[in-house]
């Protein structure tokens, strides 16, 4: 399977853990009941997942670290609500996504809000992802989308949430989420095709 295939598969992962999650359930229950050692193990387990969520949603590294800290508190605070019916990683990702989106909307410092929108109010160094075949940066194309489409794309393709989860996380009906994703993909395709046809060459540098 090539890298592209892996990326596609990862982007649609929902719950691939076959185990019944008994160990995770016990850990979450202990952490939620105030066992500090269990809570520490729980947080260590959650950090890589929460960090990926915060980095995917918030481009600015410093802001994403802030969001990581706040999301970890929310995840640990919610530990007792984990029922073990789904994978632990998946549950953490969902709780963290909700926390990071809320933080990002409040601070208006994320990929959720366009980089252009921030440019006038903040002096942060936004990372740009330049790719060999892509005429402009990844962030540039995301920035071209309306906010609700951008959020749906990040949740779906960067974090692998299901359509139903995105609907829940964004307070939108499922058909609306489907429509946003469809329109976003069409628009991205159009923009990329346009730039390729125009022979646009990457000019920005990774920062």
């Amino acid at each position: 399977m090539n890298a592209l295939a892996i990326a596609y598969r990862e982007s649609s992962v929902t719950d691939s853990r076959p185990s019944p999650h008994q160990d995770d359930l016990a850990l979450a229950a202990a952490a939620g009941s105030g066992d500090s050692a269990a809570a520490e193990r729980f947080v260590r387990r959650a950090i890589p997942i929460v960090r990926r969520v915060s980095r995917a949603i918030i481009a600015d590294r410093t802001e994403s670290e802030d969001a990581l800290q706040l999301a970890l508190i929310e995840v640990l605070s919610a530990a007792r609500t984990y029922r073990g019916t789904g994978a632990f990683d998946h549950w953490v990702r969902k709780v963290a996504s909700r926390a990071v989106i809320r933080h990002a909307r409040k601070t208006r410092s994320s990929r959720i809000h366009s980089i252009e929108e921030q440019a006038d109010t903040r002096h942060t160094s936004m990372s740009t992802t330049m790719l060999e075949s892509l005429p402009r940066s990844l962030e540039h194309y995301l920035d071209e989308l309306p906010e609700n489409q951008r959020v749906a794309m990040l949740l779906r393709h960067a974090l692998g949430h299901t359509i139903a989860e995105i609907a829940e996380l964004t307070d939108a009906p499922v058909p609306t989420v489907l429509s946003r994703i469809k329109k976003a993909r069409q628009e991205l395709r159009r923009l990329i095709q346009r730039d390729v046809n125009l022979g646009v060459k990457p000019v920005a540098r990774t920062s």
Partner: protein
Amino acid sequence: MNNNAADFDEARWRRLSDAEASEEQLSDTDRDFLYNFSPRSDAAKAEAQFFAALASLGDSQPGEAQPGDEEPANSPLVHATVQHVLAAQRNEVVADISPPPAKTRRRWAVPGLAAAAAAVALWLGVSTDQATTSDGQAPAMAVNDVEPAAPSTADQAPAPAPTTTAAAVDVAPPQPAAPTHFSVESGSLLDASGATLQANAIVSGSVQVGEQLGCVGFGDSTACFESGARFELSDDSPQTLVVVEGRGVIESPEITVGVMQVEIAGDHYTMSSPVKMHATVHSRKAAKVEIVSGQVEVRDADGQTRTLKAGEIRGRDKVQRPVVVPDAKTLLGRAQASSSAGDRRAAISHYEKLLRHYPDLPMSKAALVPLAEKYLEIGKPGPALRHFERYIRLGGVAAQEAHNGRIRALDALGRKAKKQEAIEAFLERYPSSPYAAKYRASLSK
């Protein structure tokens, strides 16, 4: 493979990838095709690379520590998180999970949480006759163990003997500090003299939202209003935000530290519980407030109090008189005439109307560059930059002018690094431009 077959395959690949994104069921054959497809055209390669990069967004970068390697570096964060949450659980302390103002947020979490945990530990240490942990043990930290400046790991230490002292008895349980003033949360806010207020600045008196959205914060509560909105902020207790006019959202989170009072059209709203409400304020007497979620206590001018719940609306929209908008050519003509007459602000107003009412017309796109120039001329590089960048994104015959204008706007904003980057990009894109010599000279300085 001939071109037709390649085109057919790419079309199929796009259709299947769209279907997978929408969670449509794929056959095994389609799935195999999708996962093993190698795009041939430049556009398809770019598209595939885009989605592959999107799927790995947030992953560790090459050269960066992998999750397994980060364990020691994570320790302060782990300890601080655990201490904070457990302290909140044990003592029912109102855990403020919202970030403090950005000014202090950078270094907040680890030492801040540790200090909070240490304060809780201090309280526990002097109150052992009343407090026990969930497993029935004596509290695990003694006064002497407290290290306010560093994360504490004393939870795992043997339970010490109670160390009550006369001085320590007076130590109060930790409480999050209630806010005492309003501050600039984000966006563009102007004071009574029209000067721009810096982010996180303490603010009181008359405030107006500038050209963009502007947010005022009070503790964890925020009021974000659109351009042109006006507030009056009173620091006298209870601290009150009076919305004079404008449209926006007022929100109080789940866990609220400090109660913000909001006055809209003579009604007083007490933001003491989770609530989100939309407000459209026409004047000091007329407004429409819609509760989106949660609930809020509202007291009217007669002193009558009631609770507004999610979905409820108070007041109503002002009856809008029909506005006759001139056609696009007329607006453009007026803008150009004002510009020729030297009335830059009138020109901006006409250009903005053109963009607002006819955003999709080619002439609206063409108006972006002269509009941005006018903003630069009146000393407003922020909106100028925004319009130049919008034109650059859309593309057009004036792209070189737009790039040139963008550099000048960045210069006016004092964003040197971005300006340098923009000049380099400009020279790469337009090496023989009339502006190139000037920019090369500026780079060589």
